């Protein structure tokens, strides 16, 4: 039950690999923070530095008010759940959960109380006398969670705890971990490469790329206001579409021109662009599939925003159209009631209030 603070934290391996660059982060008590990014982005390294399993090359790490750079993992009052569970195979599940408490010389009665309590929370009372190898993946994951819960730590660390579970169980356990967080009222730090997990569980998300923090924000803000092209593309599924083009300023609006048409940007976004002083004329426009409407008006050759359907993916509640607009390949999400088939020509109608604009070189957003 404590906050966490990372000040200019770096990790440089002896072989020169710079895994984590100048991370600054203020995690408040009781937050559920998710580190997300593609593999090799340094998210696990960052977590392991917080756990004390990796040395911090430079910078400072505080848990609560104490700087813990040189504090060993056992004295940091943290608990960690590992990707492959890391249960001790020769101990029963009860012993697995009690191990950390025994090492701290906590009285037997208290250990028993805590283990039973954790077992109640996780619904694993029946499994306590078994050994880990007798359990399914999902059950093992619960034991691993239980082992962390009984410790009653200041900070819960989780390193991709769901990635070894099958898809259905993953969704279920996701919700359970969220519930657990609400119940335990402790700081959680969770590492995943899956943006869905990050978006559904985190109160705040740290997006990392190649060791750099790209953005730290709430799920809604990441989705609505990505700071850069990487965050835009990483958050949301299917990915945001990107189109290269140029901006043209008009009296009260801005028009984006690209190879086969244009999009008028009005209102707030146009104001913001003007306010930021039009850094560049060449831009990358980002638009999410769910923000592209389509018109089945069978456009003629040369009419603006005309696209041909290459693939359709029917998901029941929605349909994804993979379309080609001249040389650009885009994805649009449409209502399944709109009947279209491969080879049909349609007109794309992107929602101008939902576009994102990025600088072509720095890839930073021009709208923030």
């Amino acid at each position, binding site marked *: 039950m404590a906050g966490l603070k990372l000040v200019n934290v770096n990790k440089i391996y002896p072989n020169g690999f710079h895994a984590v660059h100048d991370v600054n982060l203020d995690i408040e008590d009781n937050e559920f923070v998710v580190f997300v990014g593609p593999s090799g982005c340094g998210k696990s390294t960052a977590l392991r530095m917080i756990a*004390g*399993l990796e040395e911090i090359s430079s910078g400072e790490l505080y848990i609560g008010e104490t700087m813990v750079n040189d504090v060993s*993992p056992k004295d940091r009052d943290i608990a960690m759940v*590992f990707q*492959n569970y890391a249960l001790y195979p020769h101990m029963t599940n009860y012993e697995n959960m009690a*191990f*950390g408490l025994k*090492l701290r010389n906590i009285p037997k009665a208290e250990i028993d109380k805590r283990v039973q309590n954790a077992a109640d929370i996780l619904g694993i009372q029946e499994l306590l006398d078994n050994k880990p190898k007798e359990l399914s993946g999902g059950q093992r994951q619960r034991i691993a969670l239980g*082992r962390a819960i009984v410790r009653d730590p200041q900070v819960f660390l989780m390193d991709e705890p769901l990635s070894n579970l099958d898809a259905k169980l993953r969704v279920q356990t996701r919700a359970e971990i969220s519930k657990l967080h609400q119940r335990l009222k402790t700081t959680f730090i969770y590492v995943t490469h899956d943006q869905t997990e990050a978006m559904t569980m985190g109160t705040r998300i740290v997006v990392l790329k190649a060791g750099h923090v790209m953005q730290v924000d709430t799920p809604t803000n990441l989705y609505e206001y990505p700071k850069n092209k990487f965050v835009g593309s990483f958050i949301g599924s299917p990915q945001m579409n990107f189109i290269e083009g140029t901006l043209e300023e008009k009296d009260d609006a801005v028009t984006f021109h690209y190879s086969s048409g244009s999009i008028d940007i009005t209102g707030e976004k146009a104001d913001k662009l003007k306010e930021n002083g039009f850094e560049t004329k060449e831009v990358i426009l980002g638009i999410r599939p769910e923000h592209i409407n389509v018109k089945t008006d069978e456009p003629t050759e040369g009419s603006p925003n005309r696209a041909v359907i290459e693939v359709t993916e029917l998901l029941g509640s929605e349909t994804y159209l993979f379309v080609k607009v001249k040389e650009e390949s885009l994805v649009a999400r449409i209502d399944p009631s709109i009947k279209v088939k491969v080879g049909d020509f349609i007109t794309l109608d992107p929602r101008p209030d939902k576009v994102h604009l990025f600088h072509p070189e720095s890839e930073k957003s021009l709208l923030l």
Partner: protein
Amino acid sequence: MKQAKGFKNVALKTGFYFILLIIFIYLLFPFYWAINSSLKSEAQLQMTPATMVPKNPVTDSIDPYFTNYKVIFQNQQFVRGLINSTIVATSTTVLALAAGSFAAFALGKLRFRGKKPTLYMILAMTMFPQVTVLAGLYAVITTLQLPTLLSMILSYMIFTLPFTTWVLTAFFKDLPLALLESAQVDGATPFQTFYKILLPLTAPAMVTTGLLAFIAAWNEYLFALTFTSINPGARTVPVAIAYFTGAVARQEPFGEIMAAAVVVTVPIVVLVLIFQKRIVAGLTAGAVKG
């Protein structure tokens, strides 16, 4: 076609069991012959052709002769040798496993400079033939005035320790790192991690390597013969057997030697039977990911 296949199967199976039988006989016949000879009297041993079971030379009926066993247990040298061997082999095994598992933990799981050279140096230790170090060792022992039993225990480490270290290193390496990290976060010191997590998990390997170390120490002859030359009271059992003398000059007490050989083999067979399951687990563990 089907019939031909069936015939081929039968032929293959027959061939397989035939080869198995040959290997079986090849391995066990010497031991069988030792038991057979140990149950023969001097007269029975002289019979030509040699009989497959002890037979009465006159009546030709089966007639085992147990006196050999009685005699060897009345032989103070032999009994003393059994005790000495037990002390030496057990101490060697325990020390080799203790030191070997510590070394293997460091070599298998900890990061430090000069790990590879250390490993190869340990391996290199086993490359010298025993004879080459014998003279030097003898000089060292006499200079230091070490007790003979202790000198044997220490010198047996030359071949048991590198072996246990190498085998156990391979085992420790295969244990997932996450287990150690998990123990670390749980609050275990490196030593607690070692004996509460790693040691129980490497038990099969410990048993296997320990048993092999025990057998090597139990059967060792050259060092024992040399070091006990001035102290007959410290003779181990292989040396004691070699010093068996017959009742009359130049007589080789063959039956007694065979009886002693059988008696000496028994503890090893018993140990192997006790730890049978663990040995199989130990020999195959680490070969495939569990």
